[in-house]
């Protein structure tokens, strides 16, 4: 009986198809991605059944952490520069071009304006720890947050306001922020929430 000849085949698989698929996926992810913006503090946002999506651009975000510290940020770099420049002017503090550029790279700032010089002089890695400890003063005696908000509105009138607060934030702080906003006639804003999984309609 003759032996059955087993044809010897190359073990290499053709990678072209796989390569095609992976690059297709890569392209998809590159085009649809918007990067997670770095935030100085981590907040656990509350959930709701609301399904309205947040608009893409012209967003000013107010971040409130659970100790009641307030952070503020606008979304484009150009706006950030102008806002800082104008807020500085309101407190008669001037910033150099370098400082303005440096500031425009920070998505959320929470530093009292008088400490901004020192803060911007820090290395980016060193900022996180320090920033987490501060926050923009938003009490009635020294309401810098109001100035920030007002300035941002002047710089970009189309701005929409979003409040992102931690679940455990005491209502007192939120009320303080809302009252401030009411003072300067900001009467429409969005509360950022995550989608709640619920069985009811």
């Amino acid at each position: 009986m003759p032996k059955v000849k087993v044809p010897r085949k190359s073990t290499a698989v053709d990678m072209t198809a796989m390569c095609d698929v992976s690059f297709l996926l890569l392209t998809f992810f590159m085009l649809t991605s918007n990067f997670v913006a770095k935030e100085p503090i981590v907040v656990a946002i509350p959930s709701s059944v609301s399904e309205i999506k947040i608009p893409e651009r012209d967003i000013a975000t107010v971040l409130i952490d659970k100790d009641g510290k307030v952070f503020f940020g606008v979304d484009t770099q150009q706006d950030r520069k102008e806002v800082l420049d104008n807020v500085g002017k309101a407190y008669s503090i001037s910033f150099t071009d370098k400082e303005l550029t440096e500031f425009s790279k920070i998505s959320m700032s929470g530093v009292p304006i008088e400490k901004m010089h020192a803060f911007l002089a820090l290395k980016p890695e060193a900022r996180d720890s320090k920033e987490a400890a501060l926050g923009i003063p938003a009490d009635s005696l020294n309401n810098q947050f109001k100035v920030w908000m007002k300035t941002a509105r002047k710089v970009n009138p189309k701005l929409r306001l979003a409040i992102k607060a931690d679940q455990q934030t005491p209502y007192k702080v939120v009320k303080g922020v809302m009252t401030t906003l009411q003072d300067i006639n900001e009467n429409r804003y969005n509360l950022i929430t995550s989608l709640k999984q619920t069985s009811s309609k």
Partner: protein
Amino acid sequence: MAEMQVEDKGKKGKKPKQKKHATRVDLTPMVDLAFLLITFFMLTTSMLKPQTMEISVPSKDKVEEEDQNKVKASQAITVLLAKENKLYYYFGTQENGVDPELIETDYSSEGLRKMLVTKNYDVMKQVEELKKDKKKMTEEEYSKKLSDYRSSKSAPIIMIKAADEANYENLVDVLDEMNICNIARYAIVDITPYDLGLIDKKSPPAK
């Protein structure tokens, strides 16, 4: 992991032929790289955009105006958000020196929502029916009718009063219930000493 070179092995004794190079390039490293990048993009992107709740509050000058036309007591429901996730509500207001009965409830669907659904039954039914007929009408008509129903005169008016010790989650939860129960007429109002007194009476602070 180079491509195996398949050569002719037959025809011995002939002149050694020039090696035939395969024209195929090994794509494995390229695939590796592509998947590495895919992983990177998948991890750094936020596909889900966060949801938002839109709220609008009356401006300062309007508040004073509103004080003048007080909410009709029969329609008013006051929801009190207290510390430690406690929730109370009462109907109407103080009449002839008699305090309204303060009822304790919770944030579950059996608590506040049940009460609101009963109170707002007519509106919810209308909205339900409207949703069934949604396909028959245009988007504009639908939203107009929806807002008409929701702000109908008979619907209850909710006043949300949060104590300073309540947290933000409580507020969002209550606002959420308003959305679920199709209540358009609600307001976030500052808590008064009177309300705080009612809560203290209901559950006296531990000594």
